[in-house]
């Protein structure tokens, strides 16, 4: 079953689930019943405004019906299916019908995804704890010290308690030994407690992915931080302080400090004014405001009412920041697609990388992707060199945009759930294939 052209199928399934006739929905959406029939059988491509009207009539978000836009949910379902594959990697779920499932049972699909997310986070927690117990030399050393002292105290105390007619010299000696070892034991126990208290943060870091926690916080705010513009940044600091894990608090606090500094050199009002006639080239914007292009990228990602995606990574390719934009999936776990222009920029700091991008499996949506990487030398000459790359993802309105003769660069989110066939950059087999 092809992954595209299913919007009609989903519309039909949704309508049948509601038990409503075609004529009723068509009338509510302002189209003819016969046109709706063609759409439902995927024989007519549905326009954006018609889709919005149909979605309203069916009481579902348009995004859920739109071609490709369900991808987020479908990708998560595929990842869930991959995680519980049977022996020999055999599929247990009907992965080829994932979109049908998501379309017909959005509630159940949500439950599956939520369970998978929970399972993943619990698995990470178990791994982190297991790792800590088996590989933590400090913990085992402290325990060994306490057990040794306890061992000595126990034997010595038993000798004193059970031996009749013990010589005074021996008695004095054992008393002294016990005193020594009880001191050692107290010190060892104290060290153990201090260690366990202090490592709580480390344990949390293994349990919750800090980046996800920060992302959830920003997403909850609609990716808007107006407080940065009028000097109320400290209220944001308080919000960050309420994040669950220490690692996420630290990450978000660092990010917030950067965002506040960005707001000073490039106030949102100035940026909005510059964007009145459309989005100028970010490099030109950077030159005009005398800031780095990464500052422009970060500010654009926080612009109210705009859905500009932004991804940043460090020199190892690890994602440091993710501001998703609809239709451009970002990996929840694991490494991202090596074809992302982000990585092309990472390899060539200072180069302005521009690409017209489509996402494998949903090629009707296009994105204009701008990537740039910079070098930092926080220790000066002779110190370490750090590089950081940023990729701005701009949705291109009006479906397929004109591209060069080579067509758009087709990328994925992460190999495991990417359907691109014959991809030269593939790292691991996909569990998804285009039918």
């Amino acid at each position, binding site marked *: 079953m092809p992954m595209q052209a299913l919007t009609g199928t989903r519309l039909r399934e949704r309508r049948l689930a509601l038990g409503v006739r075609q004529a009723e929905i068509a009338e509510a959406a302002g189209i003819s019943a016969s046109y709706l029939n063609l759409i439902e059988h995927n024989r007519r491509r549905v326009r954006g405004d018609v889709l919005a009207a149909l979605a309203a009539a069916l009481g579902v978000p348009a995004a859920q019906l739109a071609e490709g836009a369900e991808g987020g949910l479908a990708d998560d379902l595929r990842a869930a299916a991959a995680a519980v594959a049977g022996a020999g990697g055999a599929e247990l779920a009907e992965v080829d019908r994932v979109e049908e499932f998501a379309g017909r049972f959005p509630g159940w699909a949500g439950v599956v995804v939520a369970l998978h997310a929970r399972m993943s986070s619990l698995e990470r927690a178990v791994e982190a704890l297991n790792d800590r117990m088996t590989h933590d030399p400090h913990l085992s050393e402290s325990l060994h010290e306490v057990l*040794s002292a*306890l061992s*000595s105290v126990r034997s*010595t105390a038993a000798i004193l308690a059970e031996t009749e007619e013990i010589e005074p010299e*021996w008695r004095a*000696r054992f008393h002294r030994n016990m005193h*020594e070892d009880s001191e050692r034991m107290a010190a060892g126990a104290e060290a153990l407690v201090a260690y366990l208290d202090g490592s709580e943060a480390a344990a949390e870091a293994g349990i919750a992915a800090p980046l996800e926690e920060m992302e959830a916080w920003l997403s909850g705010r609609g990716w808007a931080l107006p407080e940065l513009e009028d000097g109320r940044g400290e209220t944001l600091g308080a919000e960050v302080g309420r994040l669950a894990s220490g690692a996420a608090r630290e990450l978000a606090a660092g990010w917030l400090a950067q965002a506040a500094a960005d707001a000073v050199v490039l106030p949102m009002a100035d940026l909005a004014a510059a964007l009145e006639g459309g989005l100028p080239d970010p490099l030109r914007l950077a030159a005009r405001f005398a800031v780095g292009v990464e500052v422009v990228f970060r500010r654009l990602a926080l612009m109210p009412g705009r859905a500009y995606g932004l991804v940043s990574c460090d020199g190892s390719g690890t994602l440091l920041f993710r501001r998703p934009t609809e239709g451009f999936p970002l990996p929840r776990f694991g490494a991202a697609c090596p074809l992302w222009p982000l990585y092309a920029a990472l390899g060539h700091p200072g180069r302005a990388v521009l690409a017209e991008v489509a996402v494998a499996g949903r090629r009707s949506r296009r994105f204009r992707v701008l990537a740039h990487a910079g070098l930092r030398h926080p220790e000066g000459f002779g110190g370490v060199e750090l590089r950081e790359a940023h990729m701005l993802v701009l949705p291109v309105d009006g479906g397929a945009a004109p591209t060069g003769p080579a067509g758009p660069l087709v990328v994925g989110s992460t190999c495991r759930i990417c359907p691109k066939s014959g991809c030269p950059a593939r790292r691991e087999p996909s569990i998804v294939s285009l039918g």
Partner: protein
Amino acid sequence: MARVVLIEDEPNIAEAIRFLLVRDGCEVLALPDGLGGVAAIAAGRPDIVILDLMLPGVSGLDLLAAIRADAGLAAVPVLMLTAKGQGRDREAAERAGVSRFMTKPFANAEMLAAVRDLVGQGRERGHDQGHDQGQGGGRP
């Protein structure tokens, strides 16, 4: 009277064990580490070796392997002292031929019972071996 060689780096534990065993009628040679190797152990002509798993310098496991590889000591029972949480080391010690484990902190009665038991077993085996040797060697 059983001869015991005790290798334990914790002086106070070593002292307590030595006191216990001497009261029980053993002759105890206590070594603070395994640096003297099998030669130092053999010098005590032990009926049983009590060996701490975690020793400075030479590990208890290495020492155990050396004991089992030594012609004179191979048959001597080895009681290994361990702390909790050394599961993998315990498995390794089992493969290396340990006779019994004792987990710290142990009760004194447990220690005495284990030593008596192992010495008894070792003597039976040693007796059998001596008997065999006697036949094989054709002593008059």
